[in-house]
């Protein structure tokens, strides 16, 4: 039964991915990609990776979907008419098939027994004060990766802002969305925001021992922010705002400060003194989640498009 489910899911995923590549229409391709992300989240559940499934559903499908649909709408006007020559397509197909066959051969020849770091991860789990091994990897064993990842988000936001025309630097992204007094969107934004904030904090908190964590919680917060802006209840922020920039940097700054303190107190960068791991991880996680929410929201809004005053 479960083998049949897996096979069916794999066929479905392949079909949706093929649709994304083959579709003539740009918008249809994006819709295909969003469906692909949602189905991929189910595949992650089947692979016993609920943390990844949450991230995939929230970011790979949800936020990416909003981003790409917005881009497809902005680039509207004629689907692509140009198709490459048949010869090139055959050549590309042959190359792609060869690469896929190579990876497939590797999959069939994976070593037995499989190498794993799970016992090592389990060994020191108690010292981190966490019950969720994935978040122990993210916040303790490999915390440097997570710090650098947040820095990558900051750099991406700086990169996107830099794409603004000179006159718009420091301005606001997105057009101003006007709230319709009796609209469904403002109602949804008002009704969902309190529930969503509770859900986000819950995801962050429960991530210590169960599937969840700072990234998933931050994504929920980002989505709520976008909803409130789309509903016209708040304007998109001026990218020159001091408070906005402080919000961007709070997470990485606290992360870095705790990391540097680790050199003095525990002997190496991002090391936690015994007994303090859980407290320090939470100290990092709360500002980090907040910053991630702001960073993800800004990534989605794109380059500033109108002057600050508008």
């Amino acid at each position, binding site marked *: 039964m479960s083998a049949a489910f897996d096979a069916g899911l794999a066929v479905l995923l392949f079909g949706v991915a*093929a649709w994304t590549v083959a579709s003539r229409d740009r918008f249809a391709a994006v819709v295909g990609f969003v469906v692909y992300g949602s189905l991929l989240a189910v595949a992650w559940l089947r692979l016993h990776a609920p943390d990844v499934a949450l991230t995939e559903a929230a970011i790979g499908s949800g936020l990416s979907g909003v981003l790409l649909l917005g881009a497809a709408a902005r680039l509207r*006007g004629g689907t692509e008419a140009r198709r490459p020559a048949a010869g090139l397509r055959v050549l590309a197909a042959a190359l792609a098939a060869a690469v*896929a066959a190579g990876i497939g051969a590797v999959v069939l020849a994976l070593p037995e027994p499989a190498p794993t770091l*799970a016992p090592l991860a389990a060994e020191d789990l108690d010292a981190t004060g966490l019950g969720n091994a994935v978040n122990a990897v993210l916040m303790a*064993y490999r915390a440097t990766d997570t710090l650098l990842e947040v820095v990558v988000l900051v750099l991406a936001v700086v990169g996107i802002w830099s794409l603004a025309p000179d006159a718009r630097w420091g301005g606001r992204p997105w057009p101003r969305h006007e709230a319709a007094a009796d609209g469904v969107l403002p109602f949804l934004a008002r009704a969902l925001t309190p529930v969503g904030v509770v859900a986000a904090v819950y995801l962050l908190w429960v991530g210590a021992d169960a599937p969840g964590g700072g990234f998933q919680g931050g994504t929920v917060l980002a989505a709520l922010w976008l909803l409130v802006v789309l509903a016209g209840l708040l304007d998109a922020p001026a990218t020159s705002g001091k408070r906005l920039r402080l919000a961007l940097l709070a997470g990485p700054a606290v992360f870095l400060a705790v990391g540097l303190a680790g050199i003095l107190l525990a002997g190496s960068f991002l090391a936690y003194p015994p007994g303090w791991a859980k407290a320090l991880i939470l100290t990092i996680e709360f500002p980090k989640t907040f910053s991630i929410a702001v960073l993800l929201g800004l990534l989605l809004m794109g380059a500033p498009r109108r002057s600050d005053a508008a």
Partner: protein
Amino acid sequence: MSGETCFGLLAAALVGLGLYGAIVHGDPLRRLLAFNLVGGGVFLLFGVIARRGATAGFGGDPVPQALVITGIIVAFAATALAVGLIVRLADLRGAPARGGDTPSAGAAGSARG
């Protein structure tokens, strides 16, 4: 065929599909989508390897799983930057963008030969 092998072969197929799309499409947004398909395939391969390493009471090796979470978020950041570039490129060519019927500059042009 076990679930892991099934998803492993799917991952290989997804990488191939995405690679084909990234080469064949002239439209930068379509290339970006295809590139993300490749990313999904690579992540899935990681997931299969994590699942195979399930021991010590875990459903999968937590280390590759955590790496995939980091990867998904970095991929999103890169996608957002790419979308910013594509939209800016279209704006510079005169709004509204005319889609793939104009010769693309930069990466799109060079790959087309």
